[in-house]
């Protein structure tokens, strides 16, 4: 089972193509309706922070959900069962990296499904899918860019 990971934030140029790619998956063109955020690390001269779901093994977001709307995903992270979600926002508060975003149109969280669409649109190899079969045995799956660009 693979999960999304930030392979190297120092390669990030802040182009936001990953964010647009994530939103486009749901036919949205938006910087807010995405499961990934990029913001500067205190001004862009210092580079960027790329914020994605960490695919926790025992996710705090799921633990605080009063309706059990977030179920554990194989390989880490959670899956949203929208019909159970009451939109309380506790999951968002529980995520200390701020990786849970919000769809205010339906008042429910945007949960990363670790599909890797964002990574496919990162020309710099910042993001990639990694194997997550066993804890502590992560192996990077070479991204499209990293495979032919020594950097």
């Amino acid at each position: 089972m693979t999960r999304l990971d930030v392979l190297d934030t120092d390669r990030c140029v802040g182009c936001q193509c990953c964010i647009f790619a994530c939103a486009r998956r749901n036919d949205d063109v938006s910087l807010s309706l995405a499961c990934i955020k990029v913001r500067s690390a205190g001004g862009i001269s210092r580079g960027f922070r790329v914020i994605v779901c960490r695919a926790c093994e025992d996710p705090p977001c799921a633990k605080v959900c009063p309706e059990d709307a977030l179920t554990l995903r194989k390989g880490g992270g959670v899956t949203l069962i929208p019909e159970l979600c009451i939109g309380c926002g506790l999951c968002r508060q529980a995520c200390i990296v701020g990786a849970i975003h919000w769809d205010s149109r339906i008042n429910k969280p945007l949960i990363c499904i670790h599909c890797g669409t964002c990574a496919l649109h990162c020309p710099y190899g910042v993001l990639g899918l990694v194997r997550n079969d066993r804890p502590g045995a992560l192996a990077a799956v070479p991204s499209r860019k990293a495979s032919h660009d020594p950097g």
Partner: protein
Amino acid sequence: MIPGDPLANVLYVDLSRRSYRVERREDLFADDIGGAGAGIRLLDENCPVGADPLGPDNPIVLTVGALTGLFPLASKTVAMFKSPHTGNLGESHGGGRSAVAIRSAGLGAIVITGASSSPVWIAVHGHDVFFRDADTVWGMSSLFTVGRVIRDNEPGAGVRSIMRIGRAGEEMVSYACVTTETYRHFGRLGLGAVFGSKKLKALVVSGAEVIPTADPKAYKRTYKELFAATQSDVMRKYHDLGTAENVTPLNAIGGLPTRNLLSGRMPDTERISGEGLAAHYLGRRLACAHCPVGCIHIAALREPYTDDPYFYKTRMISYDYEPIFSLGTLLGINDPECYLRLMETVEALGLDCMSAGAVLAWATEAMEHGLITENDTDGVHLVWGEDAPYRAMVRGIVDGKNDFYLALRRGVAFAAQQYGGEDFALSFAGHEMAGYHTGPAAHLGFLFGARHSHCDNAGYSLDQTALMSGATVPLEEMARSLVAEERWRQVLSSLVVCFFARGIYKPEQTCAALASAGFDVAPADLDALGRRVYRAKYDFKLREGFDPAAVAYPDRIFATRSAAGLIDRAEFARAVSVMSAEVLAD
């Protein structure tokens, strides 16, 4: 266009009354797509004839276009205003996050009129506008610090744009710029001074509006094609070395303006070339919003403090071809650290680096000829290649130390009028030159570009094509080619896509992209749009007193061999009259 598309929302802000309203303007956007097309109409509507560029009547118009936010490299905002530098059409394009932020705020344009009685910054979050007290950041010595303070006081981290001025703008230096996202600029023609005249320190924009598409499937298909094109070799030069790549080839052909254009060749440019800077200083690359190319090159300059051992500072300073030319070779500087230090000073104060460079270059030569002395410069002794005196002079300009410095605040043409040396004041129709002494087409482009002698015209490329083919291009053909390319660039700047993407956004791809944005247009319609926008700009220029027959240019361009050899004065004068006729045709 798509019914209800937020693109047609125009935000009008009146600084005098601290009021605002949003108006639907489908009439503007349905026909003219946005950007330069909508911008020139909004300028024409909101700028009274003969308005004082630094008076409350001069509007600041910012526009984005139909492709903004939807497609890669549609990342530029068009600013239109009456220029305090030339007294005529002011147009300047800036990137960073500005365009996507305006579109995400659910807007297609922002029009700012009036003037505040005290320093203010405007925060636009969606359709809500806030007038924040900017007294604390007014007069702050560095624009970098201003950015930090505003960042700490505004929401929207990661998606917002912060367009701000430095002290040069506050002091209304006629070539002050507006800086956005630290390293991008609405650089030319003095938008910063217009901000300053309104006591407007900054404009912050953010939002979470979803951008509609007409047909999601077709949109995704076209996106895929265009995104793939951004990864092709067409964009490689911007991606790898960046525009600094031009230093070496332009120098090799003798088209690199050096020491106030006393030469077209600069010795020992290895270290200040794109290759040299990348090898020794490149510390980071950055991109504008929704642009995978990442052409912004930032150098890391590590320097010791001289008064304390083992104590260093490291600054991140941007470089591009134009500032390397204007604050480098034009001043005889080929040491990258001299360039970077001077660039940092110019950035911190918020001046257009190109006009500033031409002013400093003229002053150096004027001092050599004895037209000015250290009495005028308040003790600053300018020497080609040395950055410290240039930095002192830049600070003097912004401080407005004395009459001499006050003259320098108004650009090189005005300074030369006062002190002499007009033959070597590198001003074209009142605007300082760009970095190309490639031949007659470049200079014609400076004089007649629809943005009033902006660097972005096709002249240098025409010169280089002619040079490579070895053929002499008849003047009429040169004029027609320049105007044709300018018209097409009106289309690109209405979409609005970055001119660096002109190799990707050809008419067919542009029509496909526009279709998925809800605009049903054919290539012939684009051609008509280009003509219309070009015409509208010239109408505005003529309205404000532009006389194509009276454009002024410096003798220096005939004295120094260009890449295409010596430019013949009489022949060039004939080219100017051919060009005058061509720009006014239709």
